[in-house]
């Protein structure tokens, strides 16, 4: 069983929301559509659901074109950003909805509802009113509701974006586990790379209606397709350098990287620049305390770079510091060794 999109295009009058998207999702795979707001990722998801008419291209399931199949006959589950639970039904009534539509007998429905509520960590919530649940609980119910009829494909539209940060991190882990337990094939729309990387097996990066790159989280992080994709994924500094014998020499010092000899273009995440040891000198111009580290802005010559330092004993603005590069936070752009080059 596989979902295949070829040349999918969605247009509103003169505006093209999604252009010529090609994508495949394998059985049991979780694929994230990752992109900034307005990149067309939600529109693409809605096109797969059948909620958005295609202006061109084909959406196929198992080789069957879905064009003539109405939303309610596709058997795809959908979870919205804000749950969209039925306010006039209790938790069990919401979760059982799809089962009722599928004419599952009442006794089996109750069992399945209990099973799903256990799976999402809300055992015993059957009779609760959905309007009295917290945001996180509502999303769990929405997930259980979408999973109950065993959808062929689960579509998740920014399912965690409306929640506060700590809850989001926790739920992302839970979501990944629920999807793995259920063995569901899923398409996840998100603008948050942490969420995409936590939940998905593969990530498709979208920008301005186009898919710029598809790969595993590691591939996308280490070998972004182009500068903008790299910057969207958190790269703050882009350096041109030269590699030889597994070492790349840059303006910010040398770093060991497995790239072929010759010119190389590197994207630095803040975590790639370490303060303390190293051959390059710079001056701290700003310091911001983040959750578990300190984020520094450092002038090096006429270049300004972002760096991280441990919270304990971090330098102050005005301090002179030494810098070095850490291969772990470096993305490689436009190298001949780039495995996902287009």
């Amino acid at each position: 069983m596989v979902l295949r999109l070829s040349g999918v295009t969605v247009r509103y009058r003169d505006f093209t929301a999604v252009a010529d998207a090609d994508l495949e999702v394998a059985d049991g795979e979780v694929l994230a559509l990752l992109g900034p707001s307005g990149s067309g990722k939600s529109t693409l998801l809605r096109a797969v659901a059948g909620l958005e008419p295609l202006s061109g291209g084909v959406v196929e399931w198992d080789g069957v074109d879905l064009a003539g199949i109405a939303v309610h006959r596709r058997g795809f589950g959908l979870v919205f950003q804000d749950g969209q639970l039925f306010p006039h039904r209790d938790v069990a009534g919401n979760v059982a909805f799809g089962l009722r539509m599928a004419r599952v007998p009442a006794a089996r429905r109750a069992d399945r509802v209990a099973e799903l509520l256990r799976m999402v960590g809300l055992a015993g919530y059957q009779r609760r009113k959905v309007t009295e649940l917290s945001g996180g609980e509502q999303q769990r119910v929405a997930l259980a509701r979408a999973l109950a009829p065993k959808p062929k494909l689960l579509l998740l539209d920014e399912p965690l974006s409306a929640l506060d940060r700590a809850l989001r991190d926790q739920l992302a882990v839970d979501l990944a586990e629920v999807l793995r337990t259920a063995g569901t094939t899923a398409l996840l729309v998100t603008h948050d790379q942490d969420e995409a990387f936590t939940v998905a097996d593969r990530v498709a990066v979208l920008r301005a209606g186009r898919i710029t790159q598809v790969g595993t989280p590691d591939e996308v992080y280490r070998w972004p397709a182009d500068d903008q994709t790299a910057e969207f994924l958190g790269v703050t500094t882009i350096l041109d350098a030269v590699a030889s014998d597994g070492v790349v020499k840059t303006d910010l010092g040398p770093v060991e990287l497995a790239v072929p000899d010759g010119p190389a273009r590197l994207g630095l995440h803040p975590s790639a620049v370490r303060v303390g040891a190293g051959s390059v000198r710079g001056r701290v111009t700003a310091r911001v305390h983040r959750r578990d580290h300190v984020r520094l802005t450092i002038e090096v010559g006429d270049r300004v770079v972002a760096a991280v330092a441990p919270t304990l004993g971090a330098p102050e603005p005005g301090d002179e510091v030494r810098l070095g590069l850490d291969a772990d936070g470096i993305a490689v752009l436009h190298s001949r060794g780039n495995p996902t080059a287009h």
Partner: protein
Amino acid sequence: MDPAVAFAGPGLTRAGAGLAALALVPLGFLAVFFAWPVVAIVSLGLRSGSVLPTLADPDTWKLVGFTLAQAAGSTVVAVLAGLPVAFLLARVRLPGRWLVRVVVLVPFVLPTVVVGLAFKVLLPGGGAWTIVLANAFFNVAVVARTVAGLWAHTDRRAEDAAKALGASPARAFTSVVLPQLAPAIGSAAAIVFLFCATSFGVVLILGGAHYRTLETEIYLRTVEMLDLPTASALSLLQLLAVIAALSAGALARRRRETALRLRSAKETARRPRGGEWAVVGLACAVLVLLLVPIGSLVARSLTSGFAGYRALAGTGTSGTLVVSGWTAAENSLRAATDATLLALGLGIVASVVLVSLRRGRTRGTVVELVDAAMMLPLGVSAVTVGFGYLITLGALPGDLRTSPLLVPLAQALVVTPLVIRMVLPVLRSVDVRLRQAAATMGAGRLRVWREVDLPLAGRSVLAAAAFGYVVALGEFGATSFLARPDIPTLPVAIARLLSRPGELNNQMAYAACTVLMLVTIAVVLLVEWIGSGALGEF
């Protein structure tokens, strides 16, 4: 078209055709039982050549002058009385708010003959001011509820910001709050003006032969003088005025919908403080004044014990009525039931069509036009419609003019717009994604309506049914034209009793009014119990 449906391929045309067929039901009803009679009146007026002589007659302009002046006066009084009550409803969190809502709403749904009679008891001298006060009495609810609806959802922080910048509370009100509320006040005033200009029962009872408006003159010309050409010329004149007022109201409403960022009502109500207590006091005074006519009517009906109530079993002094009072009441209940069922069916179908059009890709102006067309019967005078029925419906098969269905049909015409205004906003507020969620879980088009929209709109439908029922029960303008003498409704019987001499007749009329009023109050309480949110745009 629902996008969830539009993409279904073959379903596209089927759904479109279904919607079009559905739209034909209310539009067809409107065409046969509203547009045709009205057009017939207009063309009768034009053809008879009586338009120019009527326009040249200075008496006509005296009529127009009094109609507009009393409507303007009533509107001013209603707005002034309604604003403090709107504040009370929107901004104040005090116990007993439900009682305030009931007290305000009862006058609005009271039968016009009841209100006319109540003011006759209260101010036996009569006169133009009595008419102005009685018309205002009806419409305080329109101002209070329309303005409160917006006020409750208006961000309090704009006002706070003005005060933080040094504005006094009074200054903050005039420079920040009032401009924000202006669209609602304007829209309410336009509706009130319309209602007052076409007010019939009240003017007929309180004005006597002295004070006549276009509406009562059309009735008198038709029924008493059989002067159809002049009556139709006056109808034409009134129709033009109504369309002008409706357009002004629509303009104000459009601005209201786009003007403000709305907040949840819960955030904006609080206990009054400082000078706000004075406004609360003022509002309470208005509420007490609203209760005075009601109380005096009940008191008057009891002046000779229960004689009036006992007399309802008979036909009045020397057979004033053809049937007994209770039979008339029974006729009323039966006609109102038929009318309500008819109006519910038409109103729900119309709401479903309107909301489907809006959700789909139909142009906004088309939707607005259909919406406005459905509202027209609310504005056009009931007397014109009743009169129109008399001259057109003979052409239909089965001689509808003598059918017992005629009265319910006319009443349904008045009730249907109310049903739409109560059901449509709720359907419109159903998040389209909620419906899409249902569709992804396997619910087809009709199933989505049944599982999502209807349960959510259920309370509003119930409230609309109850509300529509009392309006039909008290409908007087069209019914007085159409009810046959041997099957009168209670309001018609009351008017008949009042037009004949005899203390027993008076007692009977007061008792019958009290009975109608009690039924009305019971229904308003029921609506309040169903849920205040269920009242939609009223």
